[in-house]
């Protein structure tokens, strides 16, 4: 168990270092999200009351699409120079690699959310009418739902010819329950129409189920030819 966490930490530090030096994932995610904000600001009236009803969906769809670029990058750098083979021939547990990748993506997408959230508030003139603190568990659980499945399916599509296309095709259908939880939960909090408690429980359940399934299956995916 110690070696699992030690290798997870070493791999996470390595991934953050590689991303810090290349900034491949963060730059493309930020640029994409910024485009979404700007395009929709010109498409809708940001002062309208309706913005509170649509921003929940807008925010999460923007993050979902932006996260795809990070998820693809995560594994693409393991394919250069076939570095993944060096991990496969080592005694390191497969799940340490999966956890490090998922945690790394969680950090990258969380940084994106932290940078983009103020922009959404300013451009859409948002005033939260519900419990603001409930946005924290919705954001954390929702982000983990995106990255845990995304990391798993990105690894699964690693050896396919069109992996950039394959990832959304695999990920989006499976993410529908989580996206519903994130969008509806955020909308409920923004509009103040009731509590987001149900959606928090839904996301928590989704995260537990899919994290367990991903950890159980990842070794097979890693060593598949």
């Amino acid at each position: 168990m110690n070696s699992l966490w030690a290798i997870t930490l070493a791999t996470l530090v390595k991934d953050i270092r590689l991303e810090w030096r290349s900034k491949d994932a963060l730059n493309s995610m930020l640029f994409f999200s910024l485009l979404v904000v700007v395009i929709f600001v010109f498409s809708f009236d940001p002062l309208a009351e309706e913005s509170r009803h649509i921003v929940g969906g807008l925010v999460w769809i923007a993050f979902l699409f932006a996260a795809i670029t990070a998820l693809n990058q995560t594994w693409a750098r393991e394919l250069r120079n076939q570095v993944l083979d060096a991990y496969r021939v080592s005694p390191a547990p497969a799940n340490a690699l999966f956890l490090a990748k998922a945690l790394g993506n969680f950090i990258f997408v969380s940084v994106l959310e932290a940078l983009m959230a103020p922009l959404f508030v300013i451009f859409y003139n948002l005033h939260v009418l519900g419990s603001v603190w409930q946005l924290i568990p919705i954001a954390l659980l929702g982000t983990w739902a995106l990255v845990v499945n995304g990391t798993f399916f990105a690894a699964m599509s690693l050896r396919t010819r069109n992996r950039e296309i394959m990832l959304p095709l695999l990920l989006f259908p499976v993410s529908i329950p989580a996206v519903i939880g994130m969008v509806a939960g955020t909308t409920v909090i923004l509009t103040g129409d009731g509590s987001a408690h149900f959606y928090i429980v839904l996301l928590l359940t989704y995260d537990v189920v899919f994290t367990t399934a991903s950890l159980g299956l990842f070794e097979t995916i890693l060593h598949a030819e």
Partner: protein
Amino acid sequence: MTGPTPSPTIAVCDVVKRFGRFAALRGISAEFDSGRFHAILGDNGAGKTTLLRALAGLAHPTEGTISIFGKSPRDACRDIGYMAHPSLLYDEMSGMENLRYFARLYGIPSDGRCSQVIRSVGLDPELVRPLGQYSQGMRQRLSLARALLHDPKILLLDEPFSNVDVHSAREMVGLLNRMHHAGQTIFVVTHQALLLEGVADEFVWMQAGQIVDRTASAQPAIGSGEGQ
């Protein structure tokens, strides 16, 4: 009364490896004893790299079994050092950063071993520039250093001398020779058989996915177009 015959280090039994309809390995059976230096030779497409990947546990045989010290290649991974044709290293990190990461995968906590193994291949552990700026020869050396990091009993090296100048190649051969004399079992896939003449104990000749000959010199008994 004699004791039981010791099992060979590596036993390859009726191994077939197919990729779709193409058979890269066609029923290979061979035994390799420990402490010996084996050079694997053959034309392109003869199955050399596939055999090495199967020994490393990266390619699972479609049929047949591979036993290393009585274990499967995956279970024997601590005893195996694998160097592939690509570097298996991160271009954005320095040599020391790369080795430090791979050392953690083998539970090696200190940087001392990383420095030692980098020096052993003739590189400077203080070199801070990223691997992407290394010459091909330096990348090959660092790739070898990664394979040596956990002091494996068996070394599997896929074309370690390709894209390396003659001087560097001879230095690498000298290093491999020292490791051979220290008792390590070494497999080298190469097209430069003559570099290993007088160093390798055995030359294993492959053709069309099969081992066709095993000789003590770099001159094939059966013509296979190699040994130049």
